[in-house]
Structure formats: C-alpha cells, structure tokens
C-alpha cells in the first residue's frame, strides 16, 4: 500500500514542476466580513487569466494566480502577503480589497521591493505608499469630486450627505465636502451592515432635501432605498460607484427606480466592455457581474502585457515594464496610464436605474 | 466582649429573630447556643459575622460598633468563625489553606513583593512556621502538602479550627463543629479547644450535641423561634421548663 501512495505523491509534485507557470500572488478576502466582494473579484480574475493563457500566456508559459485568503482583516492580509513574498517568492502580488487591509500591507511590499497592485482600494493615503505600489482603481479623491460634479450638473443647490461609516465612505465624503460648492443641509454617518436604517432616513426626511448624496455599499444601500420608499421619502438619490450592481436593484426592487450615481467611465467605443460582459456570462452563467470586476479583469491583462515585455521576471524589471505598458493602455475601465505615484486617472460617467436595469451613459 | 442589643431580623414575612440581647464577657471560656431547628441560630451567627444585616438592633465587639462594617472588616477586630459545611479550598494544599489566611500580608501588595522582597520573605517564613505549629497541634503535619480536597470530613473540621487560629482571634464562632464526625475525633477536638482556651481564646459554640454542650460549656443560651428563652449554666438548662417544652413539646423529658 505504501508504494502506491508515494508514487501518487511523486507524480502530483512532478505534475506542477513540468508545466512551469508564471505565478502571481493575490491577497483576497475569501472569508469574513467582505468575502461577498472577494468571490466576485476571484471570478473576474480567473476569467482574465483564462483569456491570457488562451492567447499564449506569458512568453509561452501559463499564467497562474496563487490565492491567499486574508479573512477580511489587516492581520490576515499581512500574514498572506508575508507568505507570498518569503515562501512563494513572488515578484508581483495583487493587493487586498478595502483600503484598511491595503494600507496595512503596502509598507511591507515596499520594504520587500515587491510590485504591489490593487484593484479596489480607494483611500487617498495609498498614493503615498511607495514606488512599488500601484492601483488601477481611482483614488477616492477623484470619486468624491465625481459625485460633487454630478450634483452640480443636476444643479442641486442643497443636498443632504450621508455615508457609510467605513474607510471607503469617509474618504469619499471628505473629498465630496471639499469640492461641492452647494449647501450641505444634513450630514451624518451610519453603521455598516445594519438591518434597520429607518431612523436615519427619518433624520434625512426632517429637512426634506431635494437630493440626498448616499455613499454606500450594496447591502446598506438596498436596505435604505427600500425603507425610504416605504416611508414615502423619495428624494433624488445620488450614489457612489460601490453601489452600482444589479444586486442593488434586486434588493431595493422598485425603490431603485430613478437613482443616479457616478462610476469611472468605460471606454464605450472599443466594445471591450461588451466583450467582458459576454465572456463573463459565458463562463459564469448563473453569476451576476461582480462589482469592481472590470478593474480586476483589466489589471490582469495589464500585468500580462507588462510581464510579456519585461526582460526578466524580477520585480524591478517588471515594475519598469508595468509603468511603460500602462501608458496609453486601453482597458475596459478606460485609460490605465499610471501617474508618478502609481494612480490612474478617471473621468466620470453617470449610471442610473430605469425599470429595473442599470443604464450607463 | 461581644454584645447584642435587641436584634430583630425577618426574611419576607417570617420574623426569624425577635429582640435578642445578650453579652459575652471575657471570663466564660466557651458559651453554648442551642435551640431546635429553625430557631434562628444560624441567622444570628450570620448577623454577628455581618453576612446578613439585622433589621433593628446593634452588635458591639469590645465596644466597637460592627453594624457598619462589612464582613471583611469585622475579622480584623478579633472575631472569626468556622462554617457549618467547612468550606475548604480543595485545590490548595493544606499548608496553603492556612498560609493564605492572615491579612494583611506584605506579599499581598504588589509594590512590596516586587521592590522589597526581603520584607515579604521574612513575613512569609513567619507565617509558614505558625502554620506548621498549628498543623503540629492538630496532628495534621504529615498532610501539609496534600491538597485539602483529599482530607476526610473530620480532618477538614480540624483544619478549619487551624485556619481560624491563624488570625489569632479573641472570640471564635463555631457553627456545629462536631456535626457528622465520629466520637473519637470529637474528643480530640475537645482537647484542642481546651488547649486553645488556656491560650486565651474564647468560643461561642452553636451546637445540637447536648452531651458535648453540657461537657464543654459553662454558660448556655437557648433560642426558640427567634427568642432567647434561657441564659444560665448547662445543668440548669436541662431542668428548665421552657427549654424542655421548646425541644420536646409539652410532656417530654430529658435524660440526665
């Protein structure tokens, strides 16, 4: 019996050695509070990896993503990153979602000289993380300004501001408050992950504003919209990009009718976005388009391009080729050229919900 | 020494102690308190120790008011007690059960135990010696390092006396010390009590065992349904009409 076991083990290891894949690390929230988003990112990344490998992979070898779960905590993210860097010795690692986890890990990546690229962390502090740190997701400075511009374009002189009490919400709100010239009638935060926001909505209703800027996630946004509608409070809701998902419409039902939000515009012209949507639907028939999935998809393609024309698989050469590859790189989420501190610019389009569907214009 | 002035105590509607007053002086070595079940003996015991607070009346010890003091402050004034069910600390060793008792100990203040270890060490040695002498007296020194849980019921009663001796009390309240232990052990307990009386310790014995009470106690108080019905020497108590009636109903008798 022992002989069989060790032969099986042998070929198992042999199997991985022969294929010789190019490995990239990925610290993702697969369990814990924000595992909802982690699974969505993973599907988008796997889709992109599949496409890269079909198109020849990296210099003939397959691209492989080594996932590490960070339990949605800062400590978990640090452990995962340390393992990927010192055990797996990976030159490039995809950073965790949520700014708090990203901020906890980027100093380590900087110290270990590992290329660290994030697709969902909006905090403006990340721009000053270091030269090895990049981000394909626009800093919340830009998003906050985007929402402020939206409010002004729809000429709302007075607006109530409410936002979810976490790093994403507060970051955006600060940026919004600086840029928005109109009067903020009411401003308060509300807890993440609660079930009953009726009292908060009442506080908004008290000075019945024409429009309410609500920077929220899907679960909280859906609940608030529904409960507001129940209480016959129907202002013009202005939302951020984190709530732009068919799941929100599913949760809020009719209450979602007519809400408007901003999102970093996609280059409609190159049809990449249509391609991404159809490819995703083919690979995951019963899954909905994950929120921020496009950014992960673009990130993989950008990395693939950078790895292909990097002369050696060391982090320094990858870093150089990444910066050059990103100039003028047209992804699903638009132009991804990095500025000096590894951020991408973004122009903002508008999305709204009409009879149950999300329309981008 | 111990004075109680018209103590009243009731739980809900039922009046447990009604106008109980008596005084224990330094002369009578062992005073007994007897009475049928439910006459309020243990309640009186707990009132003196401070675990229950009386509704009315005052408790004085050597002229000092005890009513305002919580139980932990009362024993500094020289009052101590044993428990009916000898609450031993089963997991600590026999020696530890004794050495943990004296308060205050220098070792108990963290500042001292870190910064003046000599002081602590010296006091610790004294306490250890005192504990070993007591174990010698109780002939338990062979079990010094055994966990108290392994002692037999009788040995625990003896250890409890030892524990009380650690605080060098002036008056000790004994709550049925001989309940459930065999006669030979009772005699050794009596012998120990007598030696302690020579050392100047006074006892207030709450007990059912009539022969023991008459053998030990010079003065007996009888409590019935919360009232003090007799205060005098043991032999007179046996003949007293009220005491008999209280114990055995109207036509009972008490053998000599």
């Amino acid at each position, binding site marked *: 019996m022992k002989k069989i076991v060790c032969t099986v083990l042998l070929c198992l290891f042999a199997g991985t050695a022969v294929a010789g894949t190019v490995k990239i690390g990925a610290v993702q929230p697969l*369990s814990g*509070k924000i*595992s*909802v988003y982690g*699974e969505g990112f993973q599907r988008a990344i796997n889709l992109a990896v599949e496409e890269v490998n079909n198109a020849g992979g990296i210099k003939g070898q397959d691209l492989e993503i080594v996932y590490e779960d960070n339990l949605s905590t800062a400590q978990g993210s640090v452990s995962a990153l340390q393992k990927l860097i010192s055990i797996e010795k990976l030159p490039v690692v995809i950073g965790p979602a949520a700014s708090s986890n990203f901020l906890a890990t980027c100093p380590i990546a900087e110290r270990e000289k590992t290329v660290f690229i994030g697709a969902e962390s909006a905090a403006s502090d990340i721009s000053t993380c270091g030269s090895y740190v990049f981000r394909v997701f626009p800093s919340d400075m830009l998003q906050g300004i985007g929402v402020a511009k939206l409010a002004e374009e729809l000429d709302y002189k007075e607006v109530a501001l409410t936002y979810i*009490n976490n790093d994403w919400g507060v970051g955006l709100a600060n940026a919004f408050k600086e840029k928005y010239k109109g009067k903020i009638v009411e401003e*308060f*935060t*509300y*807890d993440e*992950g*609660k*079930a*009953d926001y*009726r*009292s*908060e909505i*009442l*506080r908004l209703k*008290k000075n019945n504003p024409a429009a309410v800027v609500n920077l929220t996630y*899907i*679960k909280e946004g*859906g*609940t608030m919209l*529904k*409960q507001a*509608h*129940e*209480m*016959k409070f129907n202002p013009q809701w202005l939302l951020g990009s984190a709530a732009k998902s068919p*799941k929100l419409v*599913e*949760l809020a*039902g*009719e*209450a979602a009718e007519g809400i408007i939000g901003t999102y970093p515009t996609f280059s409609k012209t190159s049809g990449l976005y249509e391609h991404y949507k159809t490819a995703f639907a083919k690979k995951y028939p019963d899954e909905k388009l994950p929120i921020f999935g496009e950014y992960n998809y673009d990130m993989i393609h950008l990395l693939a391009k950078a790895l292909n024309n990097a002369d050696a698989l060391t982090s320094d050469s990858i870093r150089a080729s990444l910066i050059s590859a990103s100039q003028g790189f047209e992804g699903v989420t638009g132009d991804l050229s990095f500025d000096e501190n590894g951020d991408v610019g973004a122009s903002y389009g508008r999305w709204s919900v009409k009879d149950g569907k999300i329309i981008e214009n | 020494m111990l004075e109680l002035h018209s103590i009243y105590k009731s739980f809900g509607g039922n009046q447990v102690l009604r106008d109980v007053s008596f005084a224990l002086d330094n002369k009578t070595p062992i005073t007994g308190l007897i009475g049928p079940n439910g006459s309020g003996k243990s309640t009186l015991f707990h009132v003196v120790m401070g675990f229950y607070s009386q509704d009315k009346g005052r408790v004085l010890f050597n002229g000092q008011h005890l009513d305002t003091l919580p139980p932990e402050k009362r024993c500094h004034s020289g009052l101590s007690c044993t428990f009916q069910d000898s609450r031993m600390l089963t997991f600590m060793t026999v020696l530890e059960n004794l050495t943990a008792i004296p308060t205050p100990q220098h070792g108990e203040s963290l500042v001292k135990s870190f910064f003046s270890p000599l002081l602590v060490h010296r006091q610790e040695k004294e306490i250890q010696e005192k504990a070993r002498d007591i174990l010698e007296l109780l002939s338990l020194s062979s079990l010094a390092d055994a966990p108290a849980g392994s002692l037999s019921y009788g040995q625990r009663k003896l250890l409890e006396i030892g524990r009380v001796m650690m605080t060098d009390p002036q008056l000790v309240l004994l709550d049925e010390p001989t309940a459930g232990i065999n006669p030979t052990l009772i005699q050794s307990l009596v012998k120990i009590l007598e030696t302690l009386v020579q050392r100047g310790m006074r006892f207030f014995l709450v007990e059912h065992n009539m022969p023991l009470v008459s053998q030990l106690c010079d003065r007996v108080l009888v409590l019935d349904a919360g009232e003090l019905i007799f205060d005098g020497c043991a032999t007179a108590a046996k003949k007293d009409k009220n005491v008999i009636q209280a114990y055995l109903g109207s036509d009972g008798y008490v053998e000599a």
Partner: protein
Amino acid sequence: MYYLQLFINGIVAGGVYALFAVGLTMVYSVFRFINFAHGELIAWGAYGVLLFASPPFSLPLWLSVFPAILLVIAIALLQNHMVFAPLRNSQPVTLLIASIGLSFLLRSGLQLYFGSDLHSYQTSFYESIDLGGLMISYVQLAMLCLSILFFVILHLLLSKTLTGKSMRAVSDSMELAGIYGIPTRKVSVFVWIISAVFAASGGFLLALDTSLDPMMGLTFMIKSFAAVLLGGVGNVWGALLGGLCIGIIENMGTAFISPGYKDLTAFVLIIVILLFRPQGILGSTIRGVR
C-alpha cells in the same frame, strides 16, 4: 410627529430584539449559560425559508416558513444533544466557549452552502400605511403582531399548561425538579424548541424586511443580551420589555447623537443596568423563568 415616528420605529425594532431575546433568556435561566450560537439559529431560519422557496422545493414564500422552522428546531435539538447535554454540569465558561465554537461552525456551514453573497426573497414590494403622516409598512406591522402573538401564546403556555409549570420548576433548579419526577429531559427539549421557533420566525421577518447575509445573526447577539439583562434574566415578559426599551432608546437616540453611535445606547444600557439593577426591571433576585 417626527419623534412619534421614531418611537414607532423603536417599538418595531424592539419587537425583533425581544423575539430573539426570549430564546436567550429561557436558555440562560434553565441551563445557566449564554448561548452565543443563538444568532446562527436566526440566520438559519432566514436561509431555511430561502432554501425551501428556491428550486428544489420552490414552495410559495409563506408556505416555506414552516419547514424552515422545523429545520431550525432540528438544528437546535441536535446541538443540544451533541454539545450542550454532555456539558450540562460543567462550568458556564466551558458551555459559553462551546457555544462560540458552535456559532462559527453553523455560520461557516451557511456560507459554504449558500455562498457569502447577499440574497433576498424576491417578493412583491410592500406599501406602507399612512396613519396621519405616521408610516408603518406592512412588514413592520406583521413583525409587531407576530411578536405580540408569540408572547401571548408563550405566556399562556407558561402559566396555564403543565409543561409550562414544570419548565418554571426546572429553571429554578434542575436537580430539584428532577427529584420531584419532572422529566427534565423533556422540559429541556421543550425549551430548545421554543427558542428555535422564536429565533427562526424572527430571522424570517428580519430577512423579509431587509436582506439575508450570513453575518445577520451575529449583529443581533449583543442587542439581545442587552434585552435579556434589561428585562431580568429568565423573565419572558422582561425580555419583551427589555427589547422594546432598547429599540425605543436606540431609535430616539438617532435624533440627538450621530447615528454612528446608534449601537452605543445598547451597550451603555447594559452597563448601567448591571450596575444599578442587576436583576433587571421585572426580574427578582430569585432566578427562574416567569
């Protein structure tokens, strides 16, 4: 008007807290430990309804509530048999940590099967009734009525029926009741059934009003504890009163302090109650279910 509406929100939210607190208070008074896994019964209740309403069974929503409650009862009994019964006479902290382990087990099991994505019952939208400016949605009304209905049934059960009396006896002291021939096993099973029914129905209502996510049980745990303590441990009516108080104070608070501190009121209440009236409003120093 504005405060009246807050008051009504408070009552409804309080009703939900009370529904969960009942299970907790009964388990605590009979078994003397804080059941951390109670939150997961709530989550399984909500997901159970989703399970029976989706493809393999696809019963209409209202019909699938009953099999879901049966499922939660089965879980509660299994959990009692496998974990809590063998540990009956160990220290409370051991039971507590076992219940923490159980809550991890049940919650991750839920995530494994249903995925940690957000779900919701695809139901038609609910309008709300307009009582002169005061808004109550049908779901809120349903929640309130159901809580009151359950409490009345429970009250009758506790005071009138034999099992109810024996439950109160067992809660006073398990051994004593056993000696008098009260079938303590039957009674403890009964306690688990009731707390499961309350938890499952509460979970379903909560999910109907908002959405389902695996963590929903956890967020309600501390609030339900507060309700149990405020009302007086073991006192069923106390749990209702405690829940309502917390709901009302919490919601009224949002008008004054920033809603970010909404949970703070429950925590401050816990500490204040424990200090000044450890036995709670309706509680009395003598333990046991009333």
